[in-house]
């Protein structure tokens, strides 16, 4: 039964790790738009793309 003294803290750490991850992701805005990203991932990047403005860094902090 000693194994349980190892398993319980492990389970707790795992649980807290995932809860922490969830809080972090939510605060980062991962779940702000639940609809579009699901569609967006279905689109393939194709060679026709010639981005005229490649120097643009995607989203910036504080742009919300």
């Amino acid at each position: 039964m000693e194994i349980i003294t190892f398993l319980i803290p492990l389970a707790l750490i795992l649980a807290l790790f995932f809860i922490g991850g969830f809080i972090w992701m939510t605060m980062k805005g991962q779940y702000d738009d639940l609809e579009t990203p699901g569609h967006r991932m279905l689109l393939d990047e194709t060679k026709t793309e010639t981005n005229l403005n490649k120097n643009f860094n995607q989203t910036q902090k504080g742009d919300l």
Partner: protein
Amino acid sequence: MSNCLHCDQEVLTSFFSSESERETSISIGPFCCKGCLTVYGILKNKGLSHNYYQIKKDGQPFRSRAPANPSTNQYTFLDSKDFQAEYTYLNHNKERTIEFYLEGIHCLACLWVIEKLPSFLPGVLSSKLNLGRSVAIITINESGSFASVARELDHIGYRPHPLKINQSESEYKLKEERRNLLRIGIAGAASGNIMLYAISLYAGAGKEYEHLFNLITVLFALPVLTFSAYPFYKNSFNALKTKSISIDVPISLALIMGGIMGFYNLLIGVPENYFDSLTALVFLLLLSRYFLKSIQEKGLNSTDLNFFYSGENYQKAINLGLSEFSEIHPKQLNLGDIIKISPEQMIPADGTVIRGQSYLNNSLITGESELQKISEGENVFSGTQNISREILLKVTSLPKESRLGKILQNIENGWSHKSNIVSLSNTVSKYFISIVFLLSLFLLFFVLKSSGLKSALERSLTLLIVTCPCALAIATPLTFTRSLSLSAQNGIIIKDDAVIEKMSKAKTVFLDKTGTISERESEISEFKIIKKSHIEIGSIVHNLEKNSRHPVAITLKNYFPNDSQSFDVIDHKETPGKGVSGFINGHHYVISKYSIYENDELIAQFKLTEKIKKDASQAISKLKNLGLDVKIISGDKTEKVQFLASNVGLTNNDCLGELSPEMKWDQIKNSSSTIMVGDGANDAIALKSADTGIAVYGAMDISLRAADIYLTTPGLFQVVKLIVLSKETMKVIYRNLFLSLAYNSVSVILAFTGAISPLAAAVIMPLSSLTVLLSSSIGTKELRGLWK
């Protein structure tokens, strides 16, 4: 039958890339309209068409909506400093961002092409589309121009409407949304973890672990009972403050009692608590409310349009000679501005005509179906539509101070408030909580005599916890969610679930006339030819009225097939109020006042009547069968209303004409349990004050805002289905109420006999929730067959 290559709608009269190509095999098409063809051409030129149509074919249509017709708007105002200061924001890299609400967003391909903007428009840095809200967020650098972005979007079939960005408000909303998600996530994670330890305890974990497990459970329950359950406490507090009881009150009570008992047991070392049931309850409750809220927001967002007119821009005179014009957004109009109103444009502000003669369509403002003739010096109201010719208008009052603006303000300030009804679940809660309190007091004294204070307190507390009406609280939002999404799939947007309950109790339906029962266009009911043949008359009509946009002319042209020979019309005249005249082959022809003359001799006469919507009579008789009192209230002339009423099976007593918007409101106020169905600005106050306001397809956006429900597909029969839907939904809710009360009675009996324990609660609570969930998802037979 074939489908349009671009928008996939069924094509009746197909439109090909060019007339000559129709016969050859290389023709491209069919298209439903010129708009779709243009969009196709643009995409093809940019080398985007292959991917676009491939994606479109693979993906499911996201929403059945055709692309907006391309307009000739230049959007130059988008680059003006004033506009940008108000509508856009600048980041530290001098990049500007704007949000556009886009008309016509309907599928995956839309997403693809809009997010491809940076690849073919210089100066555009990023373009992100939110499909659910139809909002694109576009960032440009200093070399880019919003006007060119807007023109491009317009050309490919998505008419853009700039949205005003209220940063603090949208940030607050975003934070609130994130917090709600956190509440759900934490409740879910905690209840899952608690279950692990609770099951071990129920299964008989050894003495040495009991206290540890209990401690862990309490620790996990702590954030759920405080942070996650906060909305319930807040709602109960608000309800109690107004001396009413909502369903959140018994829930909060159970949570607080459960918390107290759990901590007390932890302190005295008894490994017993109800946290497994209570945390799962919080999780499911939050989740069901979240579903309901998200489906409501979807409907709300589509009406939450931050613009007033249908995105039209106007030409404003910029010199005194009135010869040069620049484009202006209606929001930027100032007093004294002179603007050009083209035919078919809406008038954006009250003003005086300073040049030109035309007809106005007042039906959206007053409900009158007849056109009003206007000429120089006359005053016109905003919200009316210019019909036949270009006019110049001097703005005399700003859009927000105009007649229409005032109606809008009234609606937003809410002086025409609805009567609030207490929802079923809140009514039940009131009785419920008093019965449960009485029972637990009774139990307290009952046990006090036999086994002492401690056990008596414990058992009466337990009763309060286990009789929590959780099943009802979970099932009600889910039942509404189901009905709301069912109606949304069929083109009915319901903004608020409370109207379903109100609608199911409705006694009187008020219908507007023009635009609701009848079409805005009229039809020819009688055509008497005195001289000449049908074909000859048709030819005269088509030649004389070729360029006329007068509604009578359009009706006439539609009446005769367009295969007539074209002649030269000499001395062609069109005078508002007098009709058209001209010489064809030496004969003088006049079309005036529903008659056609040849050299002053009458050759034909016709009559116009209002065209009644196809399903109107059927819908009205069905409404009567449902036991509703159907009445027509209109701003049009009483004779016209009575004539129309007799055609749809109503008597003169059922209809009222010549009503002002305020008089319509009076009618609604004087009856109870009302439904108002309408479309124009003159219906807006009535829509707002009726218990249920339904705006029909094609309604003005002011009515859309005032209404609780709006129809995105034409036809009055949707109203009938909506009422059936509400009645059936309430049946399901009553059934759930019965089921959940049955489970609660079992808990009460167990509590009285002393057989209740955390284990019994852990079985009964999920079981009752599951039963009502099943009942909600099954619905009723009629609910399932409603849109088959």
